[in-house]
């Protein structure tokens, strides 16, 4: 089983969004950027949102099985941040399998990322969510402690 404990270094309780309200892909990106912008390390929320939208034009960040991982580098942020969010009904995110997306991991890194943490972290999340049991538990997690347990690979 993939170990997601490293993800917790970049995620905290403020960035566990249980129920996104947006009804469109662009709306979800804006809502995700708004939540992340509560962190003072986000220097420019508008710049962050523009980067996320442009990244989608390169190719959807939905990877199938109801999961999307919007990601990118931007001057808008000072340090790597991860946010996890859910959407109850699911959103059309132009996924390769055309399934609506219910689980979102947002990962944003500064351009300098001197320790090269960003791509391995992205890979770790992509690997983790391949497991159906993990996706089920991510949907069911009620508290941040539940989420942390899933990411740490405990209670499985």
């Amino acid at each position, binding site marked *: 089983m993939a170990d997601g404990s490293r993800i917790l270094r970049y995620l905290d309780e403020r960035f566990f969004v249980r129920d996104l309200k947006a009804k469109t892909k662009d709306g979800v990106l804006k809502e995700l950027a708004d939540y992340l912008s509560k962190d003072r390390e986000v*220097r420019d929320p508008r710049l962050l949102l523009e980067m996320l939208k442009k990244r989608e034009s*390169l*190719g959807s960040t939905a990877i199938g099985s109801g999961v999307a991982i919007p990601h990118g*580098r931007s001057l808008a942020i*000072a340090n790597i941040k991860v946010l996890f969010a859910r959407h109850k009904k699911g959103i059309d995110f132009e996924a390769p399998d055309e399934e609506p997306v219910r689980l979102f991991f947002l990962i944003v890194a500064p*351009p300098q990322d001197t320790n090269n943490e960003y791509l391995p972290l992205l890979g770790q999340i*992509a690997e983790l969510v391949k497991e159906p049991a993990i996706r089920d538990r991510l949907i069911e997690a009620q508290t941040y402690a539940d989420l942390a347990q899933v990411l740490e690979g405990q209670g499985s």
Partner: protein
Amino acid sequence: MNGARILDRLQRLSHLQDLEMMIHEAEDAKAKKAEEEMGFHMRGLEKLRAARDKWRAQVDPRDLRLFDRIVKRHLRAIVPVEERICLGCYVTLPTSVSPPAGDQDRLLTCENCGRILYWLE
């Protein structure tokens, strides 16, 4: 030209750099392969290049010239400042330098490496 205007100019340039970085990574065979193995499909490179070219028209021509000149030497023409340190060359900025504000017209650049400083306070 007031402080808000210069911050707007800096934001336009910053978005251009974000786009350039994204294109650079999508063109990098190793990085592209890594992302595709994770399940991301990057078929929109031409679309992204077109968006970048369109965006360049939104940037002040003087700023664009400066940006293009710096990019020839450094991949990242704009770098953040943290605790008065330029995160391009890691040299501490002199105390006489402060974040862009007021009626400042020129973008701030690092005296040591020449990069444009992304410094908001």
